[in-house]
């Protein structure tokens, strides 16, 4: 089943064309990594898919249901009620975590299910504790985010997103704010999710990681998809820009 479909997405900031007609389909259980140089539009694409950024041109579907469609050459949003339903389908893990600093780890994970989904407090807390346990953070439940390392904070953020049971989980450079050691512990968690067939779209600069866990890789450059396919296809592609990008990486 197709979980996410983006069609011909175009986006400009003033005169700067960031996305020039990108299409992307994500299937159930698939792990798709989006790689590419800074400024290539990866994060913007993610922010459009999660409805954080206003749409200009293009269409968006979740589970076959429209969220944004084209009318007279411009994107038009579905009704708020429909969008509200669609927003339940996805979660997002931010580069800089964006945990709520005034809430404990457990509150960060459990409050959205309680206040947004209106689920039973005791059940939610129990599930939240299980999630934290999976993240190796059960002993940190009563800590505040500022008392945790970056890697721990990011794992809390992942737990917070998972607590709402999204069908698709987006990651926006989840390890870019972390040192190599902390990066490792976060990647381990994402890898475990991939093994459980969680549908994920990951914007990342961790090439080896993307290569290892992805079913499909999208290489973006200057607002277009320059190469895409299985990790092997993309990493061995003849695309000069891709070679350049990877070459620069290995010399860095």
């Amino acid at each position: 089943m197709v979980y996410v479909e983006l069609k011909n997405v175009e986006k400009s900031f003033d005169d700067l064309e960031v996305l020039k007609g990108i299409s992307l389909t994500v299937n159930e259980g698939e792990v798709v990594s989006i790689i590419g140089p800074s400024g290539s539009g990866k994060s913007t694409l993610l922010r459009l898919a999660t409805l954080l950024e206003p749409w200009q041109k293009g269409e968006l579907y979740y589970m076959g249901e429209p969220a944004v469609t084209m009318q007279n050459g411009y994107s038009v949003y579905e009704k708020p009620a429909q969008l509200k339903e669609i927003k339940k389908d996805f979660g997002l893990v931010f580069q800089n975590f964006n945990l709520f600093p005034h809430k404990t780890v457990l509150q960060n994970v459990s409050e959205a299910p309680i206040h947004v989904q209106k689920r039973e407090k005791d059940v939610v807390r129990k599930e939240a504790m299980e999630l934290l346990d999976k993240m190796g953070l059960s002993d940190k439940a009563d800590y505040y985010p500022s008392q945790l390392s970056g890697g721990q904070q990011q794992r809390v953020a992942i737990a917070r997103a998972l607590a709402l049971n999204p069908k698709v989980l987006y990651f926006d450079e989840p390890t870019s704010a972390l040192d190599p050691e902390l990066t490792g512990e976060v990647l381990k968690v994402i890898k475990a999710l991939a093994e459980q067939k969680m549908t994920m779209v990951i914007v990342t600069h961790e090439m080896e990681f993307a290569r290892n866990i992805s079913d499909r890789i999208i290489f973006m450059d200057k607002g277009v998809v320059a190469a895409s396919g299985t990790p092997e296809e993309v990493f061995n592609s003849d695309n000069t820009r891709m070679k350049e990008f990877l070459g620069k990486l290995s010399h860095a």
Partner: protein
Amino acid sequence: MSFPVMLSELSEGMLKSVGIFVLTLIFSLPLGLVVAFGRMSKNKIVSGIIGFLISILRGTPLMLQLLVVYFFPYYLFGWSIGGWRFPAIIVGFSINYAAYFAEIYRSGIEAIPKGQHEAAQILGYTKVQTFFRIILPQVIKIILPAITNEIITLVKDTSLAFSLSYMEMFTIAKQIAAANTTFMPFVVSAVFYYVFNFVVAFVMRRMEKRMAYY
């Protein structure tokens, strides 16, 4: 006039000063939040008008504003203003302080990183939930020292009610001083104001400490 009599008269005035203080806070703190939203409105006309009002309220003396609020029903509509004295004081103080509080709220709200709003949006919080559950608690922590400043100023500003001949402490102190050619009432009222503010500062400090959990 004996010292105990003076003290009891001043205490009565003190109660009225406290009345102005409490009522002003009750009205101006929430009103300030509403004004802050108007000031931050995406509607340029709304934010422009509110911005202009704030600049008038901050740019002219409170004493003058009290006189305007008190007398305008009479001069504009010819209404009788008997019984309007105390309400006028509360209205004048509340509007003036709301303007200051609004700018403090705005500074705090704008200090919250955009990522907090985005995280809440992704988690499905409504705008109202986002504000009251995520943004406001963080704002309060940021603005508490600035609010304390304003509240301390308000304690002293209550004396401006003398401009409408309202019998708060400072008005009484002046009368006693004039009638008995003594400086003593001023000394006593100074002590009153100081003790009042000492308590205010203590309470606010406690609140700051309670907010220091993260």
